[in-house]
C-alpha cells in the first residue's frame, strides 16, 4: 500500500517540474494520454480508498450472507439495490470485492515491479560500470533468465511451493510469493536497459570529471549516472506494471495466486468462471472489464511515454 502513497505524493511535485517540459507539452495535446492518466488515477484512488468506498467488507464473514449469492447487478431483473454490481457465488457484494481486488492487484503489480527495478538497476549499474568479466557474467545470467519464460517459471515455482507447504500456509503467503516470483523473474529487462545507458553515459566527460575529482564509484553511479537513465526506467516500469498485473491475474486464475477468500481481480474472475454457464455473467465480466481497463490504460501510458521520451525527428 505504501507504494501507492508514494506515487500519489510524488505526483504534484513532479508536475511542477515538468510544467515547461516537452513531456508536459505533449501531454496537454494528447487526448489519449490524458484520459489514460485520468482512469489510472481513478483506479489508484479506488485501490487506496477501498476501505472507505466499499459498502461492505468482503473479508468479514459476518457481513456475508450466502442467501445473497449470485444476485445480478441492480439494474437487471432480480437485482438488489443494496448490491449495485450484484453479488458473487458466496454472497459478497461485487463492488466491494472489486475495490479490494483492484487494491490487491495494483499492490502486487507495483511491489513486484519495484523489486524488478531495484534488482535490475543495481545489476545493470554494476555490469555497465565495471564491465569486463563481471559484465559478461551478469549479462549471460540475464540471457539465461530471459530464455525461460516468466510465466512458466512462476507457474512451476508456485505450484511446487503450493504442493510442498499445503494450501493453507500457501494462502497466507500468497501475496508475498506472487511479488517475489514476478519480481525476481523479470529483472533482466531493467538490467539490460540500464547497462546500455550506463555504457553510453560512461563515455561522456562528466563521469571522467567526477572520477578525477576523486568521487567514489558508487557515488558516481548513483548521483551522476542514475538520473540520466530515468526516462528508460519510467517507460519500462509502466509497461512492466501492466505485465505484472496480467501475470498475477493469470496465476490467480490458475489457482496458484490469491485465494478466493482474499481475491485479486484474477481470482475473482476465476471463481466467477464456474458460474458463467449458468448465466451469472457479472461475476466474471465485471471484474474482467476492470482488469482490462486497468492494464490497457497502463499500456497506453507506456506507449505514450515511449513516444515522448525518445522523441523521433520524423512525424510518420
Amino acid at each position: 500500500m505504501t507504494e501507492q502513497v508514494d506515487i500519489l505524493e510524488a505526483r504534484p511535485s513532479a508536475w511542477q517540474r515538468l510544467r515547461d517540459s516537452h513531456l508536459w507539452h505533449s501531454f496537454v495535446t494528447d487526448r489519449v494520454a490524458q484520459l489514460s492518466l485520468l482512469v489510472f488515477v481513478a483506479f489508484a484512488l479506488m485501490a487506496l480508498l477501498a476501505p472507505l468506498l466499499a459498502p461492505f467488507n468482503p473479508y468479514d464473514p459476518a457481513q456475508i450472507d450466502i442467501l445473497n449469492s449470485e444476485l445480478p447487478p441492480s439494474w437487471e431483473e432480480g437485482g438488489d439495490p443494496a448490491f449495485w454490481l450484484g453479488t458473487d457465488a458466496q454472497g459478497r457484494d461485487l463492488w466491494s470485492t472489486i475495490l479490494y481486488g483492484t487494491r490487491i492487484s495494483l499492490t502486487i503489480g507495483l511491489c513486484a515491479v519495484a523489486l524488478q527495478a531495484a534488482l535490475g538497476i543495481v545489476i545493470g549499474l554494476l555490469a555497465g560500470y565495471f564491465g569486463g568479466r563481471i559484465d559478461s557474467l551478469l549479462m549471460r545470467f540475464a540471457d539465461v533468465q530471459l530464455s525461460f519464460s516468466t510465466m512458466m517459471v512462476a507457474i512451476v515455482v508456485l505450484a511446487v511451493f503450493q504442493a510442498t507447504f499445503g494450501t493453507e500456509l500457501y494462502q497466507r503467503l500468497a501475496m508475498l510469493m506472487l511479488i517475489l516470483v514476478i519480481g525476481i523473474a523479470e529483472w533482466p529487462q531493467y538490467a539490460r536497459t540500464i547497462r546500455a545507458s550506463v555504457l553510453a553515459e560512461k563515455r561522456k566527460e562528466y563521469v571522467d570529471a567526477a572520477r578525477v575529482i576523486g568521487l567514489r564509484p558508487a557515488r558516481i553511479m548513483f548521483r551522476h549516472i542514475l538520473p540520466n537513465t530515468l526516462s528508460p526506467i519510467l517507460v519500462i516500469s509502466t509497461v512492466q506494471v501492466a505485465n505484472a498485473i496480467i501475470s498475477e491475474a493469470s496465476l490467480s486464475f490458475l489457482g496458484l495466486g490469491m485465494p478466493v477468500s482474499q481475491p485479486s481481480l484474477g481470482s475473482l474472475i476465476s471463481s466467477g468462471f464456474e458460474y458463467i454457464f449458468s448465466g451469472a455473467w457479472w461475476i466474471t465480466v465485471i471484474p474482467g472489464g476492470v482488469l482490462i481497463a486497468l492494464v490497457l490504460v497502463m499500456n497506453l501510458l507506456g506507449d505514450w511515454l515511449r513516444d515522448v521520451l525518445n522523441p523521433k525527428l520524423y512525424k510518420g
Partner: protein
Amino acid sequence: MIAFLIKRLVQAIIVMFIISLVSFSIQDNLGDPLRELVGQSVSEEERQVLREKMGLNDPFLVQYGRFAVKALHGDLGTSYFFKEPALQVILHKLPATIELVFGATLIIVLLSVPLGVYSAIKPNSLFSRAVMGFSIVGISVPVFLTAIGLIYFFSIYLGWMPSFGRGETEPVLGPWETGFLTVDGLQHLILPCISLASIMLPLFIRLIRAEMMEVLQSEYVKFAWAKGLAPRRIYFLHALKNTMLPVITVGGVQIGTMVAYTILTETVFQWPGMGFLFLEAVNRVDTPLIVAYLIVVGAIFVVTNTLVDLIYGLVNPTVKLTGKK
C-alpha cells in the same frame, strides 16, 4: 555446421542437466514416496527398513545419479494417480498440446507478418491505425479472459462453437491423434487456438512494425530505391529479410512463453493436453507427473531454441554455422 551442432548439443545437455537437478530436488522434497506406496498403516521400524531398501537414506548425489540413469532410460517414475509410467502419461497428452501450439503459431505467422509490414509501410493509413489500436488492446487482455470471452460469445451466446474438449480425433501414429482431419476436431481447435494466439499476435505485429520501420530508414533500403527496384522487391525482400532476423530471435523466446500459456488456455477449454494435466497433477501432488512434465517441457525448450538458432543462422549470412560469430 557440425561444430555448430556440437556446440548446441553441449548447451542442450547443460540445460537438461540443470532441469533434471531441479526436477530431482522437487521430487526429493515433495511428498513421501513411502506413504504413497504403503499408506499410513506401517510401523516406524518397518518404514526405516523400507527407506533403507529403497535407498532413500543414501546421499543426495547417489540418489540423483540413480534418478538420472533411470531418467535417461525414459523412466521418470509412476504417476501416483494414474498408476502408469509418468512419461507415458505425459507423452500421451503431448499431441493435443502440440496441435494447439501449432494452430496458434499458424494464426500468428499468417496474420502478424502482413499486418506488421503493412502498418510499417503505411503508418498513417486508417487501417494501420486500426491495427495498432487493436494490438494495444490485444496485449492488455489476459489470455484467459480472451478465452472466456470467446466461449461466452461463440459458444454460449451464439452457440456456434463447442466450448470444451478436442472433439472427434483421427489416429495418426502411436499415441498421436489429430483434430486437424475432422470437421468436429477443427471446430474444437478454433477457439483455443485463437485464445492462445491472442496475446502473441499483437506483440509480433508491434515488433515487426517497429523493426520494419527502422529497416526502411536504413541506407541499404534507400540505395535499393536509388537502384530503381520495384517497391514489392524492396519491401518483401530487402526490408523484410532484415526485419525478420530480430523477429526470429524473439520468436524463439516466445515459444517458451506460449507453452506456459497453453496451461491457461487448456484450463479454460478443458483441453486434454499436457498443461491441463500438469495443473491437475499439482492439485493432486502427483510428484512423478510434475517432474515428467518439467523434463518434457525443458526438452521442448531446448529443441525449439536449437531450431530457432539454426534457422537464424541459415537466414543471416553474417552468422557462420561453424560455431564462431
